């Protein structure tokens, strides 16, 4: 089991600099979908490896696999005091690691549940309000319109998904640009990009102090937008989409009475620009070989820690 623990610890610590490198790399913009898969593999691999390494240290020396060993150690702790082995410094450290491993596993599961619940509540509130306030418009078939002068366009994912546009956006964009917005939002809804983003947003909420969590969330959010841009280009021209992005971005919801928005806007200034430049000067996507290699890397990042956790290796 010692080699398993060493590999798990290496994957756990290695995935942090790997995530930082991926956040700063330029190639993901060429093939956003491929890069998103790598982010998912890296995130899941990090979680499995970190939990696995902690449990592995905690269960070290009982000749079982990581997961079975950790459970056996947990079971032995609940036995009566007379049968319990004496507490040494090493066994104390092992106990701390064991506890930390189970605590991290519980935390990761919990933040996913909590984030999903928050998201579902926010969407339900939106649906109730839209039901009372929004109306259709022949200019944007299938979408809902809210009478507000600020420029806002967004989608509400879920089983009954909706695209919502403000009257401000309808006034701001011409028909072709509106069609580009709709094509972009439909791609989000069709491919459930909200589910891609959810674990990264949940991770950020739990580890707000970790710069890597913030970088990962922001990188995945931008890649999801770029991927939806790519999908929209199947139906609309790059110029229409880029113009729509710039007009909506420049309008920025300034008419909404909230001081809090200004600070957020500054922090994300570069994202729209990056998307527009990408639309105007498209670079060729990754070669099929590079895409396959990236996919295999993502699969390995999950499969290796999962196997080391589950299998009784020595």
């Amino acid at each position, binding site marked *: 089991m010692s080699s398993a623990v060493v590999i798990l610890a290496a994957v756990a610590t290695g995935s942090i600099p790997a995530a930082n490198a991926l956040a700063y790399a330029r190639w993901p913009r060429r093939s956003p979908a491929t890069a998103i898969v790598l982010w998912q593999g890296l995130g899941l691999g990090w979680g499995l490896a970190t939990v696995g390494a902690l449990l592995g240290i905690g269960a070290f020396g009982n000749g079982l696999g990581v997961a079975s060993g950790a459970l056996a150690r947990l079971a032995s702790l609940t036995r009566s005091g007379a049968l319990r082995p004496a507490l040494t410094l090493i066994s104390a450290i092992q106990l701390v690691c064991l506890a930390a491993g189970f605590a991290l596993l519980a935390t990761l599961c919990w933040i996913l549940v909590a984030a999903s619940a928050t998201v579902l509540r926010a969407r339900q509130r939106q649906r109730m309000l839209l039901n009372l306030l929004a109306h259709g418009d022949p200019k944007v078939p299938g979408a809902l319109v809210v009478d507000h002068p600020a420029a806002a366009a967004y989608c509400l994912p879920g089983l009954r998904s909706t695209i919502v546009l403000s009257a401000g956006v309808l006034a701001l964009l011409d028909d072709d640009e509106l069609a580009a917005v709709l094509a972009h939002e439909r791609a989000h809804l069709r491919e459930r990009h909200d589910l891609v983003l959810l674990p990264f947003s949940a991770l950020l909420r739990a580890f707000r102090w970790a710069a890597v969590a913030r970088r990962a969330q922001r990188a995945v959010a931008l890649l999801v937008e770029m991927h939806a841009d790519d999908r929209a280009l199947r139906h609309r021209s790059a110029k229409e989409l880029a113009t729509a992005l710039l007009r909506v971005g420049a309008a920025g919801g300034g008419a909404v009475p*909230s001081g809090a928005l200004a600070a957020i806007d500054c922090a994300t200034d570069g994202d729209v620009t990056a998307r527009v*430049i990408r639309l105007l000067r498209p670079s060729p996507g990754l070669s099929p070989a590079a895409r396959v290699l990236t996919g295999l890397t993502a699969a390995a990042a999950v499969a290796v820690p999962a196997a080391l956790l589950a299998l009784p290796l020595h």
Partner: protein
Amino acid sequence: MNRLGELERAIMDVLWEAADPLSVREVSGRLTDRDLAHTTVMTVLDRLAKKGFARRERSGRAWHYRAAESREAYVTELMLSALDQTGDRQAALARFARSVSGTEAEALLRALGALGEGAGG
């Protein structure tokens, strides 16, 4: 939108337009284009009160209903939650474009204009 949703919306419109709290009978009376049973209107008003969109108060022997917030307040809430893209909001709603500074957008729009029709497609 289902029938119940339509009714809720029509009744909220009545409450928003009214200056004073309305009784169930008054609400029914103002839903001119519909022929609804008294109990139906009462049920929907009750639902709206439970969801927090309507407030009810007793006046004499009957309940009177009014909108909890103005229509504008709800529209503002919708827009704010759409434009606020911190953390969970971003996962709940995907916004088309976040803000970009005016000068930057103008420069890029000029570049787009210079491309002319059909270019960049």
